[in-house]
């Protein structure tokens, strides 16, 4: 099962290697890991998607909490979170196919951020399921290259994971 874990860490050198080291060392499987600073530049937020059973997730949470630079760990339930991923897809687009691809982009909410004589580059920020759908539709045209940021997530409603009281 996939679990989404949000981690607030001190923005110190070496934090990321400590966290990724912990995962490989303890045999936890990461699907994705996304990191960036928060509104407080001293604090970074990491979103980790872990594959595993409940025992694994509990251990991940506890072991993460043991790292001195980790300030807060929270495992988000799938029904209480909003998850998004940013994807860039470079697709093969000779002149006679451009219009079709543009229509697909419009329908799926992807934007066109670059174009060349033979390619179009799409950008989409959405849920995993939606991205997957776009991929499937676009695949027959020939995906040349795809880059993903990894999923980031935030809680729905007024609940929040911050250091503020």
């Amino acid at each position: 099962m996939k679990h989404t874990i949000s981690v607030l860490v001190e923005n110190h050198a070496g934090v990321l290697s400590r966290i990724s080291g912990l995962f490989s060392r303890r045999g936890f499987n990461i699907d994705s890991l996304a990191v960036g600073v928060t509104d407080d530049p001293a604090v970074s937020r990491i979103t980790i998607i872990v594959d595993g059973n409940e025992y694994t997730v509990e251990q991940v949470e506890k072991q993460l909490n043991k790292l001195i630079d980790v300030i807060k760990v929270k495992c988000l339930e799938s029904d209480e979170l909003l998850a998004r991923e940013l994807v860039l897809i470079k697709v093969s687009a000779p002149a006679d196919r451009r219009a079709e691809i543009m229509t697909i982009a419009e329908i799926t909410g992807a934007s066109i951020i670059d174009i060349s004589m033979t390619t179009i580059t799409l950008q989409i920020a959405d849920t995993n399921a939606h991205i997957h759908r776009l991929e499937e539709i676009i695949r027959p045209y020939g995906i040349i290259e795809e880059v993903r940021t990894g999923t980031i997530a935030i809680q729905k409603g007024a609940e929040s994971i911050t250091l503020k009281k």
Partner: protein
Amino acid sequence: MIKACEAMVKCLEAENVKVVFGYPGAAICPFYDKLLDSGIRHILVRHEANGGHAANGYARITGRPAVCIATSGPGALNLLTAIATAYADSIPLICITGQVNSDQIGRDVFQEADITGAAEPFVKHSYLVKNADELPKIFKEAFYIAGTGRPGPVLIDVPMDIQNTLIDFEYPESVEIRSYKPTGKGNYAQIKRVMKALNEAKRPLICVGGGVFASNAQTEIKELSDIMQIPAITTMMGISAFSTDNPLFFGMLGMHGVKSANIAVKDCDVLFLIGARVGDRAVRTPLSVEESTTIIHIDIDPAEIGKNMNADLPLVGDAKLVLRQILDLAKPLEHKEWIEYLNSLKSEPVYEKTKDGTINPRKFISDLSDAMSDNTTVVADVGQNQIWTATSYKIRNGRFLTSGGMGTMGYAIPAAIGAKLADSGRPVVAICGDGSFQMSLMELATAVQHGVKLKIIVMTNRYLGMVREVQQNVYHNRYTAVSLDGSPDFITIASAYGIDSMRVTNEEEAKKAIEILSSSDESFFVECIVDEHTATI
């Protein structure tokens, strides 16, 4: 303004450090130069790993973080095994390493090793100092992190140019780490549930682990066991938390443990784990405990609860504080039948006669424990000698030290040096095998140089005994790479270091050796000749 290297020494002074263990090299020379001007005693070991083990023994006896030092590159790398050994047993160390100049880091210059990277899996925390001004804060934090919560080693890697930078020195009075707040007391509602379980138990059992020493909760455990009449057993790391004289004590559990303890675990209805992670050597599978057994688990590290064994009643907190809370609610109980049953499982050890020219190591260790003073610290190395010591040395008011989690051969001699320096009033006995002794016999020089009086016993069976035994039993007597032929004459070795010694090959000599070991204040070395067929248990 003072140089950062002088500030480092002042930090140690501010932490009331009296003794440090180390081995110098160019990259840590600025610090060593300033150490010369302080009252801190430096013990020069003969290998950095042994500096770490000596600090380990020192920390376990003083109950405070102990300091070991190494230079960059090979020095720091040699320290690595000792860091991992301390980590596995939750021993607080401050490991200070020199590093190449900061502008050279990452260029693979002479004696550069990424030691914070290499040590990451084995440290509680580490610092690569990039800003000299932060040194005082880093030292303050390091001591705090190493010694509180679940203790462990903290590494401070200091580039040479940083050591030579001028800084304003002020040692912080307090520490505030927002991301590190170890728990103290236990949750009250949970304590009431634990009390209920203990009150209703018909066959309760306390299992004590090494965490109890970190929390200094030996008195509280004894009190609880007394008042509620709960029998107790220990893991290997918990040995000496409970006096072997106590009628409610039933020995060490595990694959090398005693029958009474292992059956007690199987038959109890409430198992109260205190500061024990119950590793795979203690309880091979969770199935060794009945489904219906209620497991209560106190640990300061939430990650240990439920990691190896599912706890019905987890209690996160400092064992001493939590047990105080429990004792406030404890009322006298009796479990006569259960205790009688466990007593019926206890058996007097039988010591088989051994072939001519050899002695029974378990009898020797047991007799030795009868003769030594009650407060003796016993340090066991790794292998058969370790198990013989763990199960045969009767510890009343002393301490038992060993490398339990990592099982690092060569631990005993350096750890014994540290233990003796921590409390010179207590006799310290190190018990080794002939293999493990040869991993750190160079430290005899350290003991001699610094006037550290040790009792050293080597159980010579001419083999890496424990591995030989595995090859005998599992690999059908196919012996490979376990013969120690070529070993030197240990008596000559001892005398080369100027240490009095004797070889024990029979009962009479054993008596004489024990007589000297227990009466003299001087160092003494005993080699016991043991038949290689003598089993571990």
